[in-house]
């Protein structure tokens, strides 16, 4: 993904890089950061029916320092803007962002001409890796989002391989 734009270095660590990205992809710890309705579906994904723990991603860390992926699950408004940005900055590299739900993608139902308080999309604040549409998206969609992120990290899809 990234390598398409970055010039290749003289010394290649292909196998090592692969190992690193596999390790990272299998241990995506999200941050406990529920904003609105989508947060409930995020909790459902952690529940026993959908069980995000199968992918090693059930370790919801409350501190941004220990999390790898920030699931923006809900609406960001003007008052919260700064807090979300700070949280993103507090996360150590490498870090990823999943925009879960229409509000985090574009402002969703609040993107109207009367809008005075809602930030229209998380990507106005920081780069977003995976967008999951839905209002709110189903837990399966979040799982798919996690798998898409894994695909983005490793370059191969976990399941089903296509």
């Amino acid at each position, binding site marked *: 993904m990234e390598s398409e734009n970055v010039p290749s270095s003289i010394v290649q660590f292909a196998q090592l890089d692969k190992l690193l990205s596999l390790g990272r992809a299998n241990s995506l710890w999200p941050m406990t950061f529920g904003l609105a309705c989508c947060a409930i579906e995020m909790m459902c994904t952690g529940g026993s029916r959908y069980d995000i723990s199968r992918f090693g991603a059930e370790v919801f860390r409350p501190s941004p320092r220990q999390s790898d992926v920030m699931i923006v699950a809900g609406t960001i408004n*003007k*008052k919260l803007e700064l807090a979300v940005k700070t949280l993103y900055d507090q996360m150590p590299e490498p870090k990823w962002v999943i925009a879960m739900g229409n509000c985090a993608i574009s402002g969703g139902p609040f993107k109207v*001409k*009367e*809008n*005075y*308080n809602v930030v229209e999309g998380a990507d106005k604040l920081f780069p977003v890796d995976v967008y999951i549409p839905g209002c709110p998206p189903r837990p399966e969609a979040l799982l798919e989002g996690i798998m898409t992120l894994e695909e983005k990290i490793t370059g191969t899809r976990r399941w089903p391989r296509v």
Partner: protein
Amino acid sequence: MSVIESVKAAIEKVVPFSETVIPADPAGEGEEQQPDQVVHSAGAKEVDFAKTGCSLDVLCTAEQILDVAHALDGEQLFIESIAGVDWPKEDQIEVVYTFSHFQDSDVRVMVRLRVPRSEPKVPTISKVFSGADWHERETYDFYGVEFTDHPNLIRILLPEDADFYPLRKDYMP
């Protein structure tokens, strides 16, 4: 004496009931098309609970609201909400208070008052009903109604540095 009657009597002491007659407006809106319209202009009036969800409709002025609040407090009512309604045509902002009762059923007192849009000032009732504190801050936030003597009249829902009143009818971002 039922709660509604005693509330009505208590309010009557503070705000006497009055009605004004306005001549009918041929192009007027609404269902009533009678030649002379009797409009409730001050004090408490019983209304149909099933239809409007309120049992008493109270009209008063900004100066009277504190006395009304004391009267309602004496009748053991609790504060439900405070809302603002913007009437740009009349150049007024209306503040609507609703109170209800824990024990008696079907009691809801709606207190309405109007202040000029250019200088919306209403005395706070947060000293009587502590819960009014946040509701008043919200009304200030949305409509810019200034509640005098309020202990902490700052923005509650909008960012602290916001300089607009979003729910006024003429506001458009």
